[in-house]
């Protein structure tokens, strides 16, 4: 449409550009309020992408950009030949997969159950309490989890000992094969109440007449949940699912960093920690950048693939 008007206005081009100039002038405050922050975003979010060039160089901090030696895909070759990399990739995928599944099942279940609580006071109280861990840092949460699972006087061990299930305390934090479960459950403990908020809002949006009709037909509460509540929050579930899958590799590393220790490295090291330890920690900036690039690129590919699949099958899209 814009092009068409431009063609028509061809003879009076001057006045058209004059009008554009006038709009620009009229909107000068809008530009002044946005451009500084666009530059800000450019510096802090886009410039790091320029840093990706490091992965294709034998990067030496002391040299300028044009003095660096270019090495092509050498760092990626090193990366794909490194067993630790595949271990880190496995850990990242497994823990994000477990987090993804648990991060849907628990909040949805909790939201549905909370919605069925008829005592208004108890419902509000339970909800308020359930957000609480979301607001504490992972440092605090990890400290609490470590304390609860501790070998001396930890709550879980005390309970198991008291009930006679075990003879000696279990050193939970020192067992590699337990690490994935501990991370996932810590996440469940911290985020279930918070993530349930969205589902509760979605449930609140379901028309009460549906439930009334079901009640008249004699449907039990459980059947109402199954046939009304769950289908009612389906669109919300799908949108959130696409978002989470796009972030599958960006699970962060705080949990793994804070809950992990030297005894469980084989299970706790995720891609970001790997780049931190074997890249930054050893001064191998180029190698570490290669890891970060791998991470980002796979994430974007995942996001677009999943979004495409969902777009075709359910007509829901994010992008």
């Amino acid at each position, binding site marked *: 449409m814009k092009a068409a008007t431009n063609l028509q206005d061809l003879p009076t081009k001057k006045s058209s550009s004059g009008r554009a100039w006038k*709009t*620009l002038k009229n*909107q000068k405050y*809008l530009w002044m*309020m*946005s*451009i500084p*922050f*666009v530059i800000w*975003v450019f*510096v802090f*979010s*886009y*410039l*790091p*992408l*320029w*840093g*990706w060039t490091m992965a294709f160089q034998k990067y030496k*901090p002391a040299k300028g950009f044009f003095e660096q030696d270019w090495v092509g895909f050498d760092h990626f070759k090193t990366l794909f030949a490194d067993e630790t990399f595949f271990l880190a990739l496995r850990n990242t995928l497994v823990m994000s997969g477990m987090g993804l599944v648990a991060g849907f099942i628990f909040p949805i279940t*909790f939201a549905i*159950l*909370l919605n*069925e*609580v008829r005592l208004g006071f108890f419902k509000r109280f*339970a909800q*308020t*309490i*359930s957000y*609480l861990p979301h*607001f504490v*840092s*992972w*440092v*605090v949460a990890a*400290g609490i989890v470590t*304390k609860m699972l501790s070998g*001396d*006087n930890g709550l879980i061990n005390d309970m198991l000992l008291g009930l006679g299930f075990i003879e000696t305390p279990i*050193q939970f*934090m*020192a067992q590699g094969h337990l690490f994935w479960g501990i991370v996932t459950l810590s996440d469940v403990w911290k985020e279930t109440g918070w993530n349930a*908020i*969205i589902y509760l*809002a979605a449930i609140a949006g379901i028309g009460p007449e549906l439930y009334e009709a079901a009640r008249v037909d004699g449907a*039990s509460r*459980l059947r109402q949940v199954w046939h009304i509540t769950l289908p009612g929050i389906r669109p919300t579930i799908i*949108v*959130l699912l696409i978002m989470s899958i796009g972030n599958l590799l*960006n699970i962060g590393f705080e949990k793994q*960093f*804070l809950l992990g220790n030297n005894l469980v490295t084989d299970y706790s090291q995720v891609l970001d920690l790997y780049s931190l330890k074997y890249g*930054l920690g050893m001064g191998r*900036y180029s190698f*570490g*950048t290669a890891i*970060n*690039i791998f*991470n*980002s690129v796979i994430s974007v590919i995942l996001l677009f693939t999943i979004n495409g699949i969902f777009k075709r099958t359910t007509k829901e899209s994010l992008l």
Partner: protein
Amino acid sequence: MDSSTFASRKSWSDRIFDIIVYLVVTFVVIVTVYPFLNVLAISLNDSIDSVRGGITIIPREFTWDNYVKIFSFSGLITGFKISALRTILGTLLGLLTASMLAFTIAREDFQGRKFVSTFLALTMYVSGGLIPTYMLMRDLHLMNTFAVYILPGAVSAFNVFIIRSFIDGIPYALQESAKLDGANDFTIYWRVILPLAKPALATIALFLAVGQWNAWFDTYLYNGSNEALTTLQFELMKVLQSTTTGNGGDYRSKIVSAATNQVSPESIKMAITIVVTVPILIVYPFLQNYFVKGMTLGAVKS
């Protein structure tokens, strides 16, 4: 009213359903809250007595000693100051940037609208990663500065879009009539939009403040060796990660060390945990209504 008419002919299965609902929700409440009360109780219990174990949610030998002790750590005092400062400044700056950007891209007649919002949205999907970001901070000379806590995260696309969807709900006629009265766009933003967008701003303020207060990794990465710029979370992390009381360990030697140091590391850890957590617990119930609304709004829009 409605439920009472149906209560009389509540079926057997519905009653079991009700019981399960209340049991599970109660269980969730207990699992959530117990660890906090346990930590609080240990932090208020005599440290030598704590080594014996078995403290639940009530201190056995009440004392303030652990708290007195931790407030004599200089690192903790500095950390408290820096954490408070970054929370205040980071929140104010984040609110300003997010609300201004949201105002401009909510204006349908703004010519840069599409460009600005796309430019912002892309940052939610692609990130440079840990090491390129680290190198950038180094090149910008932000290592070992306070600014590194505030500047890099000052513009958040997510926050912009939440506020923007709130502004979309404010009638545009208000802006137009202000314009007829001779107000420029900045005045409209400041005098008309900001006061009306308070619920959204409160939500974002809470997100920003909690994020700033809870941050520790930037301290670790950029200012780890600079004691003047340490933060509370980072100090707690160092204390928690110290292996003075690893899992297990000799019971007797711990009693001895507790007796000689007056305060056992375990009690210290718990007391610091409480100090770090309490400010957030004080604030969040008051803002609950706001953030529930904000969360829902953001989710529905995106």
